[in-house]
């Protein structure tokens, strides 16, 4: 087991009094003498989110944006446990965002843009979704030379069982004990797919590598260190596949979970109005012609002819797997499956 991928820290003119949560990146956009500054705490990699901030600033010249990246568990620590002041929190961990709303940490944002969203894309006017991003399997084409590309979990299981020597140590997935998104995907998988636990067993036997984040998994896939990355964010993979022609993206044909990336405004925000404007801007997702690829926006309809696509719903049911006992059990089962190599 190995934990990989902690991006370099970019320290800027920003003091961090008494913060004990762990930060991955910080960047300030805009002038020092800006009229107002928007403090954003986010799980989205800087490279993914930069185009949004730049485009927003083009429209609002007098503001500065402080963008802080942290893992979703650290985001929760900052907002829930330490109540550190931010104006906007963006996270892929829908369950944790829902808990913030349910437990009374957030204020409402209701605007023309949010009302245009379909009802499933917001909860309580507090958790507001602006992207929908599937969990996919990413493969190295080279590692699969001579083998069929698996299209579902059960095909993947069969293939891994047949070729253990080829894939030993070359499968990667989230460490769900530390990654909030990894935990969300895994718990949804366990509800929707009969193959989830068998797959974890097989992963365990193949000495699966555990990661903090999608970006790191994709890096290792491209460099050839990994052959398979399971439950990677499709949106991140798509951006990279253009540049790296040696990887293939599989949307599992049995079930594919779709995560909604959400934005919330904490109660203690200094600039709630500006934060609301930024949310509206994210919903419209108008990056302008030259600013690169945006994340997949919320479509009008979540319905899809493909029954395998399972958008994760916002609502109190997301609190179920955050339940202390349920989480403890789930993690124990999961660790029991993926860690069997240890001690052998």
């Amino acid at each position, binding site marked *: 087991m190995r934990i990989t991928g902690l991006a370099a820290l970019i320290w800027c003119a920003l003091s961090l009094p008494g913060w004990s949560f762990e930060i991955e990146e910080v960047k300030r956009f805009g002038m020092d003498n800006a009229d107002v500054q928007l403090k954003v705490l986010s799980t989205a990699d800087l490279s993914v989110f930069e185009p949004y901030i730049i485009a927003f600033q083009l429209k609002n010249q007098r503001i500065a944006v402080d963008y802080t990246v942290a893992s979703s568990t650290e985001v929760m620590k900052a907002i829930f446990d330490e109540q550190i002041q931010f104006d906007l929190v963006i996270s892929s961990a829908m369950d944790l965002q829902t808990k913030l709303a349910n437990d*009374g940490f957030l204020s409402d944002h209701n605007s023309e843009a949010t009302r245009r969203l379909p009802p499933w894309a917001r909860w309580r006017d507090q958790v507001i979704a602006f992207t929908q991003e599937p969990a996919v399997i990413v493969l190295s084409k080279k590692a699969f030379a001579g083998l069929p590309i698996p299209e579902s979990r059960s095909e993947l299981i069969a293939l891994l069982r047949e070729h253990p020597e080829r894939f030993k140590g070359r499968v990667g997935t989230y460490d769900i004990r530390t990654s909030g998104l990894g935990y969300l995907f895994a718990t949804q998988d366990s509800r929707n797919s009969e193959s989830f636990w068998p797959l974890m067993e097989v992963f365990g036997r193949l000495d699966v590598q555990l990661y903090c984040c999608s970006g790191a998994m994709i890096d290792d896939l491209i460099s050839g260190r990994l052959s398979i990355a399971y439950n990677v964010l499709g949106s991140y993979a798509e951006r990279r596949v253009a540049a790296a022609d040696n990887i293939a993206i599989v949307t599992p044909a049995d079930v594919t979970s779709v995560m909604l990336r959400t934005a919330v405004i904490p109660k203690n925000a200094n600039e709630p109005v500006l934060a609301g404007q930024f949310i509206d801007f994210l919903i419209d997702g108008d990056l302008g012609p030259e600013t690169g690829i945006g994340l997949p926006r919320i479509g009008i309809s979540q319905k899809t002819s493909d029954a395998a696509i399972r958008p994760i*719903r916002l609502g109190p049911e997301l609190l*179920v797997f955050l339940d202390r006992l349920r989480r403890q059990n789930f993690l124990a089962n999961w660790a029991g499956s993926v860690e069997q190599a240890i001690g052998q």
Partner: protein
Amino acid sequence: MQDNILAASTTSIAEAVRAERNTLGLELPYAALSMLGAISDDRVFYRVAQNGLTLTGYDDLPIDVSDEAEILFKTEAFRSAVIRSATLTRKISVDGRLNDVTVTVAQTREGLGEISARISLIALLVGLGFFVLAVSLSAFATGRTLRPLDVLANAVSRRGPSDLRPVKAEAPTEIVPLVTALNRFIERLETSLTRSEDFIAEAAHRVRTPLATVRAQAEIALRRVERPENKTALRQMIRAVDESSRSAGQLLDHAMVTFRADHMEFDTVDLSALVADTVERLAPLGDLKDISLRLGTMPSNAMLKCDPILIQNALRNIIDNAIKYSPGDSDIDIALTADDAHYTITVRDEGIGFSDMKTSELARRFSRGPNVGEIVGSGLGLTICKEVAIAHGGTLEMKDNPGRGGCVSLVLPH
């Protein structure tokens, strides 16, 4: 509505608490909270306590102690919001010692007036239909007469309404087909849950058909098993399935009616033809009890602007009641009359009648009369009829015939 769902949620959590070696274990059922999420965007809190100490959930949620098997409802303030809570206490023995396990589930009540998405309500109702099935399966199995059935029923009921994995209990050969049928039912239900947003009516159909298969398999098993206690268990199961299937069907019909009533689409139809057609379709149901459905003279050219699907649904429920609450070998008279302002569809039977029941009460949701005895029903039929009447600006009237039997009229203005 909120109380029903809080109660279902509390029950499903209480049933999921198990004794585990020397402690208590709980796998919080997904449905326990998703059913609450389906009725509104309100905040949800829960707490499970063992002898007053929090086992899991929100530590600061006030707990009450309820009498065993009785659910206690309360409205109170919590975290600067008003919540409605349901509490249920169960006794569970761990290592030979009895523990009071108290489950409280609470929900704020801000958005309950406007159920934001009807659609999710429908999904919820399908889920509840399944929940009813699960609970009744476990209820009949508590007799412990037939162990494998007990195991099967437990396997289904432990997990609550929307955990729709197939059942994998060990089953003796006689009931293997039953398990298969049950699994197919679950599978279909799951599909309709994901799709019901598009096809409510279709969802109703999808639930009913496989349940009918489950029932048929139970009947076959009934003929195969020998021991009387097994026969009793299976008979109870058949009744449970009947009740569930009726409830699931009526819940879905009701959802469909509410949905259509919100988006009224009017057609001009010939009411005489509609009545005649409905009566003809229900004739076989009457035949089973040697009851004949007699169609009176009808006005020609009784054209009405209405939603024919709704009218048909209401009439079907009225005639279904007449058949259910009448003795065998009797007659039911159906008539359509017209005056200047109204069309009136009247159904008279020779059954037990409404005697001194408060007829306005009977049209409330889930309300059934004291006269029902062993007759299967969910208490939604007249609710549906009344909503259909209201959606058309009309009324539903229930009274007794001068002689004997009941008389139900659907009055529709034209």
